[in-house]
């Protein structure tokens, strides 16, 4: 909790500074104007804005500070009628108290929405992973097959006369590498299935995408899709929830594979690209499956709208809510000469901060 708050403070330093300067300005104005002028009611703006930190403690802190400053101003103000000042101060305090209460309510409602969205996203993620079980089992069985073969080979090279130390060493090195690989697959699955609270971290989008692709390789192979990637080397970092963004990429890749899985003829090419213009990063997933008509494209991101038989129609809706919660946009368009492009654009880490305090 403490660390979270620290990160908030680091993430949005301008917002903190702005609010504190505003409070100071209100305090000065309140103190140096007559008691009849209720400048203190302006604190309510500060309290409402402080709700943007998404932390009840912060709202309470600003509310309490406002109340204390209001009383202090009343005591320090040299001019004016004290009775009027007292009424003004009391009204200001009531306004501050009511606003703090409302801000806390708003904050709590938003937190519930976020919580529900996170739970829905988690459910969808678990469902997707469930559908991928066979492919993920394949991703684990590949290195296991390698381990079985290399392990037995090592035993045989050891039993040979004379034993071949070089072959044994190479075989064991492969065993270790394969075991690591199997462990990585399991770790990634665990991360995606685990129920973790939403987080905001600096992320390398290229690494994030590669990890998702490593998990879907079996599925792509099963659908006999040829995967190509075009991930720019110098992608800037972005702020976000790694698991949620992985879920978006996972959804888009699985959708593309499914769109091509039913093809009778033609290439099954999947191109996953990521590029940046310095302010934003755009990730695109192109397939050569069935193109959707323009009317259908407009609806793909709506909940319960599915173009797949047996689809729930939640994947893209959840993807959109995740991308939008990250300050980005998601899009769909027809690919040429056929298929679809799904993608999303996210602000890079620096730009994200700009946007939030602007």
């Amino acid at each position, binding site marked *: 909790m403490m660390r979270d708050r620290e990160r908030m403070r680091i993430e949005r330093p301008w917002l903190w500074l702005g609010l504190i300067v505003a409070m100071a300005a209100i305090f000065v104005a309140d103190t140096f104007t007559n008691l009849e002028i209720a400048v203190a009611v302006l604190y309510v703006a500060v309290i409402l804005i402080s709700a943007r930190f998404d932390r009840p403690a912060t709202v309470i802190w600003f509310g309490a500070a406002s109340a204390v400053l209001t009383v202090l101003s009343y005591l320090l103000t040299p001019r004016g009628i004290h009775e009027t000042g007292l009424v003004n101060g009391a009204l200001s305090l009531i306004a501050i108290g009511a606003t703090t209460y409302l801000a806390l309510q708003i904050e709590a409602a938003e937190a519930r929405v976020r919580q529900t969205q996170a739970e829905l996203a988690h459910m969808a993620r678990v469902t997707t992973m469930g559908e991928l079980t066979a492919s993920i089992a394949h991703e684990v069985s*590949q290195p296991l097959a390698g381990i*079985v073969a*290399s392990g*037995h080979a090592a035993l*045989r090279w050891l039993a040979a006369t004379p034993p071949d130390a070089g072959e044994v060493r190479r075989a064991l090195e*492969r065993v270790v590498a394969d075991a690591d690989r199997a462990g990585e697959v399991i770790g990634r699955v665990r991360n995606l299935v685990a129920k973790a609270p939403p987080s905001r971290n600096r992320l390398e989008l290229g690494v994030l995408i590669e990890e998702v692709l490593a998990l879907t390789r079996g599925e792509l192979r099963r659908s006999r899709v040829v995967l190509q990637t075009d991930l720019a080397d110098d992608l800037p970092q972005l702020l976000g929830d790694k698991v949620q963004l992985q879920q978006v990429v996972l959804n888009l890749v699985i959708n593309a594979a499914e769109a091509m899985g039913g093809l009778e003829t033609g290439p099954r090419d999947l191109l996953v690209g990521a590029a940046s213009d310095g302010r934003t990063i755009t990730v695109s997933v192109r397939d050569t499956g069935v193109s959707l008509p323009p009317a259908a494209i407009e609806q793909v991101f709506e909940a319960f709208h599915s173009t797949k038989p047996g689809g729930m129609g939640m994947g893209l809706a959840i993807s959109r809510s995740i991308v939008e919660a990250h300050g980005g946009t998601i899009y769909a368009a027809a690919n040429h000469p056929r298929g679809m492009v799904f993608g999303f654009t996210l602000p890079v880490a620096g730009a994200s901060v700009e946007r939030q305090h602007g």
Partner: protein
Amino acid sequence: MDRQAATVFVVDDDVSVREGLDSLLRSVGYAVTCFASVREFALARRPGTPSCLVLDVRMPGPSGMDFQAELAALNDPIPIVFLTGHGDVPMAVRAIKAGAVEFLLKPFREQDLLDAVRVAIEKDEARRRDEAALAELKERFATLTVREKEVLAFVAQGRLNKQIAADLGLSEVTIKVHRGQVMRKLGAATLAELVRLADLISGTGRAAR
């Protein structure tokens, strides 16, 4: 079986599996050549030694099953051992019906794989032996005279010397002499064997396994 001469071709797009199989099969004395795709294998030169193909079912691009059909269309008789990470019963049945030696699920048991490879190599050796025998028989057949070939055809149909003599307007003794020549040239000790060889040459019979 001379294992030194046998070659196992491994086609798998996964480098772990490929290198593991390479080491394992070499450790039991096979020559091993690995490929990451069926295309690479199709372009490779193959030695004239007994060989078999260890093939992953699902790979990017053409699948192992597609490639099996392709080889069959090209009359390429190389025996195939299939490996797969996620196979199902219908797929296994289809592969075996199309002539695959074995269909193994990854991660496979070492002994199952080695057994399957041994069976596949033996199958290839048997085929090569049969082909060599047939080639030799055909060479011998080529040394027969026109008349002898005629007589052989009648014998193969199960006609008696007397009937053949009547058909060809020759004496029964002459037919007997021709028949004796045919049996000697083709290396048949009995009438039954002669009929079998005649079937082999005409392509209606199957080589004994």
